[in-house]
Structure formats: structure tokens, C-alpha cells
């Protein structure tokens, strides 16, 4: 207190982001639409969409499962309907896409995202499997008018975090686990403090493996800007339990708001 207000305590006063992840086409368009209807700016800030991928290598088995379904279910026009709906409610859209799926398409996918109103793109395999192309890829994303959302995790070297962060002004996606939905032990506080130390003042949203409210509270207390929820939604989606979804959003918003 007093005059010693850290950047973290300042950030704590801002509204924390709730980010939802959906795989397009899972479990089916109807369910997605009805879930989408429950989403509003009251609770949710961003929605990330995973475009169906034949090989979502850094996703855990649950999200991998959604891609399998999605690969056969998904039709572009279905997605576009969702995008319009959410954009209309002031929700920002991001795409979670593997670089391996788009590197050879001559920028078609990026232009598509831009056209559809996406704010940015998260590319989890870029720094890992295509690090030599990272700068040119980031350039092309920026050229397409999209934010490149750096995707880091505890294995990302400090130097890379600094370098990549400095190449872009957008928020940062910090994956807590080696892949989505996985739960290996780590010290939430340490992780959050460290990334805040490396890129001070930056908006950092945490994802990959967030399971419970306590964890969210802890992240927030360590200065997280928000959390992304994906795997935790899959069961509700599978069972089509819209109500459960809605009360989950309320509850999570409450947690994020420190209630």
C-alpha cells in the first residue's frame, strides 16, 4: 500500500479476461450456436477458435478428440455464423492454429481471418517446430492486419520471450502445461511472477490446463490478466449442457472479479 504500488497491484484492479476456447465443429454446429448465445461481454472477453486440424500435436487428448469430430463436421459457413454473432456482442476473436496447417497456403488463411473479423492468431508450434521462420511468419501476420499473439510456456527460453514479445504489442498467451488439458505439477505463483518479470506491464493471459477456481484465483493474485478455458468446457459441450455452461461463465467471472 502507500506509495509502493507495483504494476501487479495496478493490474489487479483492471477487469480480468475470461477467454473461451472452442474447436469449430465440435460437438456440432447446433450445440456451438446455443452455447454461443449464452456468451456476452458481461462475462467473456475473447473467444479462441481452433480450426479443425488433422494433427493438433500440442493439444491434449480431450481437445485432440474434438478435432477428430470437427474434421468431419465442420463447414466454413457454420463458423462464419458464430464469428458474426460473437463479434456483434463485442467479443474479440482469435484463432488457435498450427503453423504446419497454414504455412504453405500463401497467406490465404490469414486473409480469411482478417476478413472474418479476427483480432489475432495464436500459433503454438511456431516457436517450437518452425523457429527459423518465426520472424517472417510474424511479419506476414502483421501484414495481414492481425495481431500475433506470442505463445509461451515454461520451456520458452527467457531470451526468446523477450525477443518475441518485443516484436509485437499484443497480449501474450502463456501455456501453463506442455499441452492443453494436461496436468503436470507446477508452482502457479512462480510461473506467473516470472513471466511478469520478463515482460513487465504486458497483458498476459494464461491457459492450457486450467482446472479449478483456486488456480484462477492464484493466477489473478500473481497479476494474471486473464485465463483461457478450453478442456474444461468439453464435457459440457459433449452433453450439450448449456445451463451448466452458463453458470460456469458466471462463476468464473465472479472468481476473476475477486468475489
Amino acid at each position, binding site marked *: 500500500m502507500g506509495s509502493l504500488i507495483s504494476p501487479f497491484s495496478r493490474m489487479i484492479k483492471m477487469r480480468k479476461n475470461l477467454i473461451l476456447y472452442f474447436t469449430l465443429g465440435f460437438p456440432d454446429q447446433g450445440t456451438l450456436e446455443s452455447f454461443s448465445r449464452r456468451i456476452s461481454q458481461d462475462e467473456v472477453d475473447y473467444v479462441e477458435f481452433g480450426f479443425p486440424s488433422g494433427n493438433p*500435436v*500440442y493439444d*491434449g*487428448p480431450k481437445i*485432440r*478428440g474434438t478435432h*477428430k469430430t470437427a474434421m468431419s463436421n465442420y463447414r466454413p459457413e457454420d463458423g462464419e455464423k458464430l464469428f458474426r454473432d460473437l463479434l456483434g456482442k463485442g467479443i474479440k476473436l482469435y484463432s488457435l492454429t498450427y503453423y504446419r496447417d497454414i504455412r504453405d497456403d500463401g497467406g490465404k488463411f490469414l486473409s480469411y481471418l482478417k476478413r472474418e473479423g479476427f483480432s489475432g492468431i495464436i500459433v503454438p508450434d511456431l*516457436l*517450437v*517446430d518452425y*523457429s527459423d521462420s518465426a520472424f517472417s511468419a510474424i511479419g506476414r501476420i502483421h501484414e495481414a492486419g492481425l495481431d500475433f499473439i506470442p505463445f*509461451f*510456456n*515454461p*520451456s*520458452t*527460453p*527467457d*531470451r*526468446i520471450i523477450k525477443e518475441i514479445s518485443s516484436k509485437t504489442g499484443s497480449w501474450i498467451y502463456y501455456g501453463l*502445461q*506442455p*499441452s492443453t*488439458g*494436461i*496436468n*503436470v*505439477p*507446477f*508452482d502457479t505463483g*512462480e*510461473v506467473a511472477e*516470472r513471466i511478469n518479470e520478463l515482460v513487465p506491464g504486458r497483458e498476459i493471459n494464461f491457459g492450457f490446463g486450467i482446472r479449478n477456481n483456486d488456480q484462477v484465483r492464484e493466477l489473478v493474485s500473481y497479476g494474471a490478466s486473464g485465463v483461457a478455458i478450453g478442456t474444461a468446457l468439453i464435457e459440457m459441450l459433449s452433453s450439450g449442457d448449456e445451463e451448466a455452461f452458463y453458470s460456469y461463465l458466471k462463476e468464473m467471472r465472479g472468481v476473476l472479479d475477486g468475489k
Partner: protein
Amino acid sequence: MITSQAEDVIPDSWYNIVPDLPEQLAPPRDNTEDFSSIELLNRIIPKEVLRQEFTFKKFQKIPEEVAEAYRQIGRPTPLVRARNLEKFLGYKGKIFFKYEGATVTGSHKINTAIPQAYYAAQEGVNGIVTETGAGQWGTATALASSLYGMPSKVFMVGISYRQKPLRKKIMGIYGAQVFASPSSETKFGREMLGKDPDHPGSLGIAISEAVEYALENDYRYLLGSVMNSVLTHQSIIGLETKKQLEVLGEYPDALIGCVGGGSNFGGFTYPFIPDSREIDMIASTASEVPKFGKGEFKYDLLDTAGILPSMKMYSLGADFVPPPIYAGGLRYHAAAPSLSLLMQKGKIKHDEADEPAVKDALRVFSKTQGIVAAPESGHAIASAIKYAKESSNSGKTIVLNVSGHGLLDLSIFKDD
């Protein structure tokens, strides 16, 4: 032999290379679509080890109990100026060697067995299980388990079990129960025996049995090499070496070690990497297992059975059948992901040594320094001798890691 007060030489913390790598380490991958072998690690590996596996932290505090155990088992290990070897080679520079064979179990393997067993004991698990090929890892695991009062089971590759009775014996003295793998202790083992009652076994099968045993009995499985956490624990080798060199006012021009899974090499060299000084770091592999020379940098299985996740690393393929070389500890098909990445980025070089060169090197080292080194370490020695003989390296300060002694592997000198 140069040592300083143990208190000053043994570091407070292990060093984790991951945050200092030139690039992001590729995360592990599951092998099958609908099952997460990464998640399964939670049931196999002690929690704290798993935490260390994926931590961003450069320094990991060594618990006081572990530091004490390190002192008990012979740390710090000596750093010796190999004057007799220098003289023998007529080398103008200096050759030092760090001697991990001075630990009570005779190799660096105990450096990671101790913390892993310690963390497991803290969690109150039922016991420890692992596999062993050459026997060094099983020996270290057996002792570490015994130090923390836990029962231990070791699945020893069948053919080694029969060829290395001394290894089996010493594990037994340390209190381990040793099974020839494939064994009838596990479903997987029984399956293999069903196919061939005289199955010679393989590391892949032994790992599979150990992991199955861990899952069935709520035991914990200890990792012998390759994994980050192991390399982090092994960093004690390099941290001590740095300190010991510092006391002498020396700094290496070259660091040379052998590579099986990469743990002694990584542990030895990594602490020098943040210095960003010009050092030739040379990883010596067996010519017969040319993982860097002929291997590919790709995601591959850690264990032949594919129970554990895949890692991105230099690999000859998980189905690579290594020739039955004397240096059992170098037969592994791949190298640690961090080491593989550094190799691929050209930060680390590699050399290969074949059996005759290694036997020669072992003899020279025995007669000059009195140490019958482990066959694995013989590769490091052979590469160091080769390095010292190159005229462009004249006058350099070479530091080599001798990862173990070979007193229980004397049979390699059978024909002489």
C-alpha cells in the same frame, strides 16, 4: 587431485538449461490420439521430479537433505589434472578430468537417483522401480532407494542379467530385488516370455515392465537419463567442475564427455553455456550408435513400447537395434532433447569412437592415471586423446568428464 571444502564446491542449486536454450524446447507429445502419456507421467514419476521436468526456473534449490546425501556418496567428486596422461601424450596444454567414478556407486547416475528417490520418499510412495541395461543406473537406484528406506525393484535386461552377475549382486547388496527382463512379474513381461521363453530382453521391454510395475503397485519409476529433470540434477557435475577450475584459475577451451542419453554430458557442460565463452563442447558417442552422425532430429519414442511420451531429439529410431557393444550405457537410440537442440544449433559438436579406439584409450588411462574407467567414459577419453593430438589444439585446456569406473565391467578386456 584438486578439491576444496565440500561446502564450497557443492552448489546450492542445480542448473536448468531450458530457459537459456537458444530456442524453445519442443514439448513432449503423446503417442496416441485418445490417451495422454504425458498425463500418465503423474502416476509414474514423483511429482516434484515432474515439476522440475517442465520448470522455467534456471536454478533449482538442492534440498539440504539431498546436499547431505551428496556429501555422503562422495561429492564433490575430484577434478584431477591428468599429468601422467599429458606426459604420455606429450601434450603441451593441460588436461583435467572430472571423476564421477569416485561416487560410491561408481558413476554419475547417483546424482539424479538421490533427488528422485528423495522426492518419492517425501510423497510416501510404496517403492521404487526402474529398468537397467548396463547396470549403473540400477545400482544407483538401488542405493538411493535404500538410503530413503524404500523397497526397490530393478528390471534388468535379461542378457545383461546373465552376463553381469556382479551388477546383479551389488544391486542385491544395496537391497534391490532384481528381475531378469522380460520377467513373469508383469503382464507385458509374461507376454514376451510367452513368445520366447529365452527372450534376451531389451531396454524397451525393461522400461515397459518397470512402468507397468509402477502403475500396478503405486510405485514410482525413476528416470535414468534423457529427461530435463535428470540433466538438471546432473548439472552438479559441471557446477562443481566450474568451481574447482575457478579455484585453480583455469577455464576450459574444450569440454569433452560421452553421450548415452546425454545426462552426464549435459550435466557437465551446460553450466558453462551461460558464460557465452568460446568452448569446444564435444559429445562423444559410440561409432556403433551414431545418433548424431546418422540420427535424425525429430519427435521419437522414448521407450520402444511407447508408454512414455515422444520427444523431439536426435534419434536413430526407437526400433534401432544397437550392436551388442561393450559400452552398454551408450546403446540408447536417442539423446536428450536439450542436447539435441544444442547440437542441431551447432553449439555442441560431436565425435565418434569405436571399440578398438576406446579399448586403447581405457588402457592408456589405466596405466597413466590408474583409473579403469567405465567403457562409456572410455569414449570421452578416446575423443579427448584425439582432440589433444590435433596440432591446432596444442596448448589448450581440455576438461573431460569420466562418468564412471569400469571395475564391474572388466569383462570387456576378456580377450586380452
